[in-house]
């Protein structure tokens, strides 16, 4: 059974992006060698990335344009198998992507049954919310950034049910970020 891990940088007031889409300049406060190293290790532990449409499109543009990143992380991002869940996307051109138009929960449950390495999900807050409500996310890794944005797009969407968690690990970064890792209670 593969593990599905959600990874996000989040502000202290719970936003994963600012009021405008892709407003993530505040990532700079914690980004650096230490976090880059952790990101790379995390990517190497995985063999699949899941996306909702918006995050997919933004990341595809970022990682494939000539002025984007080069190096190990870029190579990973561009080559790793990806699945994008969207009813409206016509085509998914970023290298090694499969487009799934319906029943994300069913598809993700199937993917988890396969043997393989970890599956990661970044951004994709609406998709994550659906997967969370279906109990499909095995680990939540949040890098808490020392900033209160004041407005933005919340990582955790409104939901009628509480979800109890179990703290797995905390890690304080030299930059002032804190990585908190949780598993839904009863799943560890």
């Amino acid at each position, binding site marked *: 059974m593969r593990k599905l891990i959600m990874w996000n940088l989040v502000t202290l*007031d*719970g936003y994963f992006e600012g009021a405008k889409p892709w407003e993530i300049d505040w990532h700079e406060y914690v980004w650096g060698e230490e976090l880059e190293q952790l990101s790379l290790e995390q990517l190497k532990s995985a063999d699949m990335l899941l996306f909702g449409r918006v995050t997919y499109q933004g990341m595809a543009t970022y990682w494939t344009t000539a002025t984007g990143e080069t190096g190990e992380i870029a190579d990973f991002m561009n080559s790793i198998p990806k699945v994008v869940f969207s009813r409206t996307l016509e085509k998914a051109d970023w290298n090694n992507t499969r487009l799934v138009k319906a029943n994300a929960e069913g598809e993700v449950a199937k993917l988890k049954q396969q043997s393989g390495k970890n599956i990661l999900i970044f951004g994709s807050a609406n998709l994550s919310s659906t997967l969370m409500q279906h109990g499909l996310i095995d680990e939540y890794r949040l890098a808490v950034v020392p*900033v209160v944005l*004041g407005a933005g797009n919340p990582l955790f969407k409104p939901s009628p049910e509480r*979800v109890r*968690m*179990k703290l797995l690990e905390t890690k304080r970064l030299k930059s002032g970020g804190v990585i*908190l890792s949780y598993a839904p209670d009863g799943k560890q």
Partner: protein
Amino acid sequence: MRKLIYSLSVSLDGFVETLDRKIDWVIVDEELHTFFNDQAREKGAFLHGRRMYELMAEYWPTADLVPTNTAIEIDFARIWKSTPKIVFSKTLDKVAWNSRLVRDNAVEEIKKLKAQPGKDMDVGGATLAASCIEHGLVDEYQLFVNPVVLGAGTPFFPALPNSINLRLIETKKFSSGVVYLRYKSAEK
């Protein structure tokens, strides 16, 4: 200049209470309660909004008289009663237990209090703290992150027109899975 500290238990999605004002999910075991007591002991004053005052005044004034209460609870009851409290409310008629009622100009009053010599002050709950944050009066933010996603509730941070940069000054992991994150305002 005395420091104003805003310190509360929060859910992982950043709420201090549910929509119907429940705090049944807040972990307060012996370890945490001892920590809370030690912090409270160091304060020169507690600033309360009406709801927080009413919540505290409902239980603590007689908690030290109940022999079956733990030593830690009895200790806190004495700390709460003996520490000067300033209650900000337009609607309360009177307050008791070493409290002073302030009906108007909360912000001006708090600025005056900060200018006075003395030990640091604690502000709670979220409504009063929101005014303080909006006027740049909070010097330190202390979040006791509980391992639960509530899905909705009263947020720890209000909406703000500008972001606030913070500096992480302390973290602590409790055996219950609660994580203490302590920040000071970076501009100060």
